[in-house]
């Protein structure tokens, strides 16, 4: 790891030298309006009306470095963002986002999609990085309320980068991990409730009201089942070297042989519509989701011109195609040996290497420092001392306490004996019953998104309300 980091710095240093040499060769600022015709150049419009076309090389919170070619001569100039009215990014900027992934020795490109870096307070140049760790059960500990609170804390702390480290629990029971080929596609709908929080055009933008929304970066250690749909809505994904993303390969098997085939097709189609939408929003190929979700589909891929191409067919090796997933039928079915080694290909599970090859992952980082380095933030960022860990812990403890308390309250309710010499005593006991049930309703509402009453063996809110009404009626009669 250390060697790689040092090598990275050396390469980085060389690049800086190279750029410096170019810059020093032409000291003059660009004159007037540049009239380069290429559509893929960035266009910078200044407040004084000047328009400059060129290639944005680097951007900080306060400055922008641009390479301009004027009459065949290259010049690199740094501009103050305060003087800039608007930046229109050329096609090249978009192409670059899907450009070849960084090697282990190269820092990855700083994520650029979605927005320019926001203007920061004068004099401050360091990026503020906020770290959120999502672990535990998807839909239980990993859920929208604590995530929202953490993001609000990030906004309060003026963080302009949010790193979300995800490592969800993927277990069959307390002792046994689930294998890669286990799947929970329909947890997609649970993930959808969290998506607006990760979307700068939706709730995340509102949390950052009045500020430039932050760049969200997912750091995948384990994103299996519904958790896979969280990073996929985000354009910036990095993997830990042991990272995995998948566990949604059961779409084709969800309905077995129930009902008519055309209705099963409809059910699959609408789910795929939802899932592909997530990928498209994140900037990933919709075909990737099909390969992840449907065991029956055969997919191949190849990398052409730095871009990944998918094909819903067996690979034509002579054309550079590589098998991604097969149909899992007959002799193509994964063997137990392959499954035990996580080498199956009936459904797709992304590991760090494949994710990077498919340009889902922008790089691999095993530590937070390495991730900051990969993001180009190692020397110009501050890790914010936020409350996210406490927020997540508090939710986890609160949830565990709530589940325990709900069982206790239900037991205590059932233990209350409605007896007494007169109506006053009996109704006092009924009053205690009602209070227990009302406490249960309060807890169920607070943890509504994470608690399924049936799993706890207790009635849900509608039934609790009916019980309360019946007790009230008994109180009316017993007077």
């Amino acid at each position: 790891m250390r060697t790689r980091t040092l090598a990275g710095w050396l390469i980085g240093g060389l690049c800086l030298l190279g750029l410096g040499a170019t810059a020093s060769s032409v000291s003059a600022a660009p004159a007037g309006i540049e009239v380069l015709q290429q559509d893929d150049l960035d266009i910078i419009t200044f407040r004084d009306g000047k328009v400059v076309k060129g290639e944005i090389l680097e951007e900080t919170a306060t400055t922008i470095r641009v390479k301009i070619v004027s009459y065949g001569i290259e010049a690199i100039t740094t501009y103050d963002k305060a003087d800039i009215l608007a930046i229109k990014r050329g096609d090249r900027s978009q192409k670059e986002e899907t450009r070849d992934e960084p090697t282990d020795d190269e820092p990855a490109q700083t994520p650029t999609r979605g927005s320019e870096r926001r203007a920061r307070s004068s004099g401050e140049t360091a990026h503020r990085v906020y770290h959120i760790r999502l672990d535990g059960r998807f839909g239980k500990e990993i859920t929208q309320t604590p995530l929202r609170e953490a993001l609000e804390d990030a906004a309060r702390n003026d963080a302009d980068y949010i790193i979300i480290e995800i490592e969800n629990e993927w277990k069959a029971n307390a002792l046994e991990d689930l294998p890669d080929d286990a799947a929970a596609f329909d947890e997609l709908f649970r993930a959808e409730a969290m998506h607006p929080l990760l979307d700068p055009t939706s709730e995340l933008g509102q949390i950052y009201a009045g500020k430039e929304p932050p760049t969200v970066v997912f750091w995948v250690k384990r994103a299996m089942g519904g958790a896979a749909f969280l990073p996929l809505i985000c354009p910036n994904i990095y993997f830990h070297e042991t990272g995995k993303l998948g566990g949604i390969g059961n779409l084709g098997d969800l309905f077995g042989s129930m009902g008519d085939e055309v209705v099963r097709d409809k059910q699959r189609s609408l789910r795929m519509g939802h899932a592909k939408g997530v990928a498209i929003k994140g900037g990933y190929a919709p075909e990737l989701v099909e390969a992840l979700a449907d065991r029956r589909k055969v997919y191949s891929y190849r990398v052409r011109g730095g871009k990944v191409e998918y094909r819903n067919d067996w690979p034509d090796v002579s054309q550079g195609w590589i098998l991604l997933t097969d149909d899992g039928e007959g002799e193509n079915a994964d063997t137990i040996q392959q499954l035990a080694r996580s080498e199956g290909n009936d459904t797709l599970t992304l590991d760090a290497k494949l994710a990077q090859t498919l340009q889902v992952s922008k790089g691999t980082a095993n530590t937070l420092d390495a991730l900051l380095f990969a993001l180009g933030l190692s020397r110009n960022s501050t890790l914010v001392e936020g409350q996210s860990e406490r927020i997540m812990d508090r939710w986890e403890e609160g949830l565990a306490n709530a589940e325990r308390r709900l069982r206790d309250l239900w037991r205590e309710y059932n233990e209350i004996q409605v007896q007494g010499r007169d109506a006053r005593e009996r109704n006092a006991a009924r009053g205690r019953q009602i209070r227990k049930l009302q406490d249960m309703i309060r807890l169920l509402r607070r943890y509504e998104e994470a608690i399924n009453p049936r799993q706890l063996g207790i009635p849900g809110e509608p039934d609790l309300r009916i019980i309360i009404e019946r007790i009230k009626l008994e109180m009316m009669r017993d007077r």
Partner: protein
Amino acid sequence: MFTRLCRRLGALAMGLAIVGGLALGTPDAWAGDKIYLKDGTVVEGEIKQELDGYVWVLTKIGGVETEVIYKPDQIDRIERDADQQAPPAEETPKARSTPGSEPASKPRRDHVVRAAVLSLGDHRAGKDMVGVYMTADSLRRAIPLLEKELGSDGSGILVLRISSGGGMLLEIQKLSDVIEYELKPRFRVVGWIDSAISAAAMTAHAIEELYFTSDGHYGACTGWFGQLNAVKGRDLEEVLYMMEKISARGGYDPKIMRSMQINEPLSCSIDEFGNVTWYQTEDGGEFLVNPGDEILTFTSDQAEKFKFSKGTADTIDELARAMGVPEVEWVGEYVQGIPYPVCEAEKMMRQFRDQVAEDEARTREYFDRYNTSIAAAQSTPREERGKFVNRARQALRLIERMVANNPNFSLLVFNRTYEEFQEWVREQERLLRDLMR
């Protein structure tokens, strides 16, 4: 440096003057915006972008398009869409007016289009079922509020933000009729597709102008019931025919919807002018859109590529740009958690859905309270019945309120028509009166 700056500013000023002069000298009346500069120059062209008072104008000089930027301190005033003011109704099919209808009650800023977002369903909140949370009745109730906010002369833009996983077949025609006969004559109706599955897509299909969010999806319209049993035979034919007619309302080739309803292949070709021709075969067109053994659901990229949608937009600003409305006044105020301004009609619609959600969760409670109170009254001496009868009456009011908020509950809960439900309520009131006699 100073000299260079002066030279640059001089060149810019000269550029502006020349452009202005040419614009005056060659009145290429190809776009309707006029920019009156403080120096007396009038520039005609198309405003492409505005920011902080700066205006990007596309003009034609000798037939060559040129984009020029004007600073705020150069501009005296702007006349927007000068050539297109007060267009005849027949030239703007989406801006139809209702004879005799009153204009907007609110004063408007000149030349600024008003727009409002009205959500139909909220799939992320689980309040999205067509017929339950997305109903013709609630949509109709929103119209007076929308008229107050947008006017009814056809100039206001009503954006129907659709977010639903589908629902009841019987509501589709009703919703489609409200859109066609009650909304379109009053507003420019636009669909903004977040999630339109099954009955929701079939509802949106009456709208000519659709935009998708980037994660939006639309389709999967197969009718079914029970344990994934398909609607078949004559019932299916009737639904297919209904959607052929609704496809015509929205201006869509009926083959598209057919591939969303049943296993029918779909392909298309796009000519050099961008016209799309659809084929109900896998290989008839250049692009395979849906294999014959699948059901079609469009994603945003497909919808845009095959011209089914007019564009993709995640924010109201992007939507305004996609709609080609450079200046728009969005009606309403921002509320945390909602990515667009909430107008009065939207507020009403959200209250409607919240009430439906509460009623849906408490239906059993209402009936239990009613029935147990009646039973208690019947088993109690007449002089002590009052409290139980009152309690039953309260429960009956809750049931009535539930059905008044969503008349479809009469069918869903009582398996009765709305009129039969009202008769049932009258019977119950007679029963309660009798209990007190």
